[in-house]
């Protein structure tokens, strides 16, 4: 079983990373900021332009530490990964399943059921302490999500599943303004937009999803699956479709919950964002750090994995789900059990 290893985030432009012994040494402007033993790391995420020695990169690849690079706007650029883990027979089975309409349908359907169910739980949970005037709209959203959930369960075509996923996502995002409390109402939310995100909440969601996608890709690669060959998401060059698939059921309980708790508690305010000339909204550096701290802390929080019947942490959920997906593809499970929040 994988243990929860840490992620090293680099946020300061011009940071240099080099290797001394079995450690990563982080230097900013000739000042040594930190030394981290490689054995404590699962991944290194560079959120800005950073400089890394080939020796360190080599050691990361050999130790199975994933290194990923994001552009300054938070757009994913690249990840460095060594030989694929796991075994080739599993990957072949994954490709066969992806080419098999029936198996693809079954897995995609399970994933969307997980997504919509978790989205509904999130709305219902928020309803409990929402202001009275927000309750009807949240109840309405939960009811519509329940309808979509039943429809997904009955869907017999992949296109139908994808269509319902889109409709459910739209209904879910419509409920978002009702989730803002107190001073956080200043944020406002007029639907999901991206590339670039055009308001602060969308900027937070995009940033959170980009981090979660990389965690999912790392988890999939860790069990030997190919993160690029998906079931719900079609193959597309440069897209980590399976990572996006795996992320669906985790968006609401991991990222959305974190985003709303940060803005509703006033930890992030509209002033923590800046608008670029092109209308793109970005987090200011301090806010981005605060978000990363909260994201890492959220991964330490304990959660009950209903299917496995054991306590785990949120950070391990993508790894457990990747393992369950591998078992499904090997035929050891009858169907893929999505992660369900109770």
């Amino acid at each position, binding site marked *: 079983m994988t243990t929860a290893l840490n992620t090293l*985030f*680099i946020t300061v432009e011009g940071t240099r990373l080099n290797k001394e012994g079995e450690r990563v040494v982080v230097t900013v402007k000739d000042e040594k900021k930190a030394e981290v033993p490689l*054995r404590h790391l699962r991944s290194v995420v560079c959120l800005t332009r950073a400089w890394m020695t080939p020796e360190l990169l080599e050691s990361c690849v050999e130790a199975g530490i994933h290194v990923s690079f994001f552009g300054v706007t938070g757009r994913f650029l690249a990840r460095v990964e060594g030989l694929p883990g796991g075994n080739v027979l599993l990957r072949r089975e994954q490709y066969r399943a992806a080419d098999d309409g029936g198996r693809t349908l079954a897995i995609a359907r399970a994933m969307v059921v997980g997504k919509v169910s978790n989205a509904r739980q999130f709305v219902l949970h928020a309803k409990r302490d929402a202001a009275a005037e927000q309750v009807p709209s949240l109840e309405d959203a939960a009811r519509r999500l329940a309808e979509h959930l039943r429809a997904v369960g009955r869907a017999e075509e992949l296109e139908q599943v994808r269509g319902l996923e889109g409709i459910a996502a739209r209904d879910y995002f419509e409920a978002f303004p009702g989730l803002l409390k107190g001073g956080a109402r200043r944020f406002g939310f007029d639907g999901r937009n991206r590339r670039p995100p055009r308001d602060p909440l969308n900027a937070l969601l995009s940033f959170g999803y980009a981090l979660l996608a990389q965690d999912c890709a790392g988890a999939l690669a860790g069990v030997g699956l190919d993160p690029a060959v998906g079931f719900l998401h079609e193959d597309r060059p440069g897209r980590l479709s399976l990572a996006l698939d795996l992320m669906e059921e985790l968006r609401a309980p991991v990222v959305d919950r974190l985003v709303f708790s940060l803005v509703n508690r006033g930890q992030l305010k509209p002033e923590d964002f800046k608008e670029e000339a092109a209308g793109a909204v970005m987090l200011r550096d301090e806010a981005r750090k605060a978000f990363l701290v909260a994201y890492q802390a959220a991964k330490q929080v304990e959660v009950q994995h209903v299917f496995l019947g054991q306590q785990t942490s949120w950070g391990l959920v993508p790894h457990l789900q990747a393992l369950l997906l591998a078992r499904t593809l090997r035929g050891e499970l009858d169907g893929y059990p999505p992660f369900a929040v109770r």
Partner: protein
Amino acid sequence: MRKVTVLVCYDVQVSDPTGPKRLRRIARMCKDHGVRVQYSVFECVLEPKDWVVLRARLLSELDAESDSLRFYFLSEDVARKTEHHGTRVPLDVEGPLIL
């Protein structure tokens, strides 16, 4: 897997001609496995197999005639039960690593 948390402390006789080399080597082994909290004190949070390796390497380096090495086995919540005053606040490798 349950990790082990060990506080590694050492004293190396540096007046001995081979002392400084032993000191450097011991310090390097500790740095690779844990976090320096004071000059000759390291906190190491390790998987049991890594701890077995580190312990063996440290003991093989030690000159039992002139040096001393102490291992304190700590409970997992050491961070919560520790106070730090003054400079050189050590890095928490289990906490968020955002630099």
